[in-house]
């Protein structure tokens, strides 16, 4: 008598706890929702730029020389954020590598049965990858002029790598190459920043190089350089993450 009842009640309890959990979650989220709602209802769109934004809109062209104000903010005005952001990615990639490096699969674990990659995909990818890489480079080199920049370009570069991975799952990336690329671009980024302290107005000041004419490729001081470094670094980091996650065996 006892056993069936207890199993029954266990199951019921589990279901009940689920129900309770959901109910509490809904209740809590309702409260969060009211908080959000009051934010939303209290929101009045600006009709004029506030003084910070106004400063950027007015002064970017003259001071920084970048056509894309967002880029100017990202790379110069709030360059420290971006450096931090790159660092975040850097340590994420490092940790992902660390986590997965420790996790060696037992050698007798069954190798993953892979679907043979179709001819079309492998050929296509080989042809497409250089183009994609080129596109990525274009995006980050032109970051100060057009939408896009280091992050977007880096992501595009990484998707090129992704394509290669898809085409040839067993392909081994050179971790050392990625790592050197990552480190060098990072070091240069910091180095340029420090040079700004020494030679220009402060850390990450873009006026190390002449700011040139608005709208030209070689303008906006070191912004294109930095954005390119960011692009390389981000691309390398994404690639290293993808590679770490995709490789079933340690290199």
């Amino acid at each position, binding site marked *: 008598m006892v056993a069936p009842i207890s199993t029954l009640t266990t199951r019921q309890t589990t279901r009940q706890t689920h129900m309770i959990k959901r109910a509490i979650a809904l209740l809590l989220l309702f409260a969060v929702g009211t908080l959000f709602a009051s934010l939303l209802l209290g929101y009045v769109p600006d009709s004029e730029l506030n003084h910070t934004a106004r400063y950027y809109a007015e002064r970017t062209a003259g001071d920084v020389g970048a056509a894309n104000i967002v880029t100017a903010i990202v790379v110069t005005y709030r360059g420290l954020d971006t450096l931090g952001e790159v660092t975040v990615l850097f340590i994420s990639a490092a940790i992902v590598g660390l986590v997965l490096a420790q996790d060696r699969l037992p050698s007798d674990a069954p190798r993953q049965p892979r679907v043979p990659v179709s001819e079309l995909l492998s050929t296509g990818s080989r042809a497409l990858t250089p183009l994609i890489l080129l596109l990525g480079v274009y995006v980050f080199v032109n970051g100060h002029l057009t939408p896009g920049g280091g992050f977007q370009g880096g*992501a595009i570069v990484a998707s090129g790598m992704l394509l290669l991975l898809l085409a040839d799952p067993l392909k081994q990336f050179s971790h050392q190459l990625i790592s050197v690329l990552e480190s060098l671009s990072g070091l240069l980024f910091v180095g340029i920043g420090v040079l700004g302290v020494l030679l220009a107005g402060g850390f990450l000041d873009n006026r190390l190089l002449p700011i040139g004419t608005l709208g030209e490729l070689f303008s906006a001081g070191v912004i294109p350089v930095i954005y390119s470094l960011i692009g390389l670094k981000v691309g390398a980091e994404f690639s290293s993450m993808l590679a770490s996650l995709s490789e079933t065996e340690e290199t």
Partner: protein
Amino acid sequence: MSPMSPLVFGITLVLCITMIGAALMAIRAKRLPVAILAAGLVSLVASILFLVLAAPDVAMTEAAIGSGLTTFLFFFVLARIRGAGHGGANIDADNEADNKADSHD
């Protein structure tokens, strides 16, 4: 100050509804890959929304990173977990039991 054109309004509304629908799908989907794809769709739609909101930089980033790379990361991990073979076949087991319990209600 030009009034918002009905077209833009309509597009935005559709985008928002799509996003919310996709998000709900991602939460409620029975199969994990579907959920991941739905989440990717949310990002993709969001990047269009960013364009509408005059934020092309963000739109590009969201499209490339949010919907692209992230989705791939998920699939890589999923593949590795399935490949690892430790009960990888019923990776959704916990939630399926959960969902079944719900469907009886």
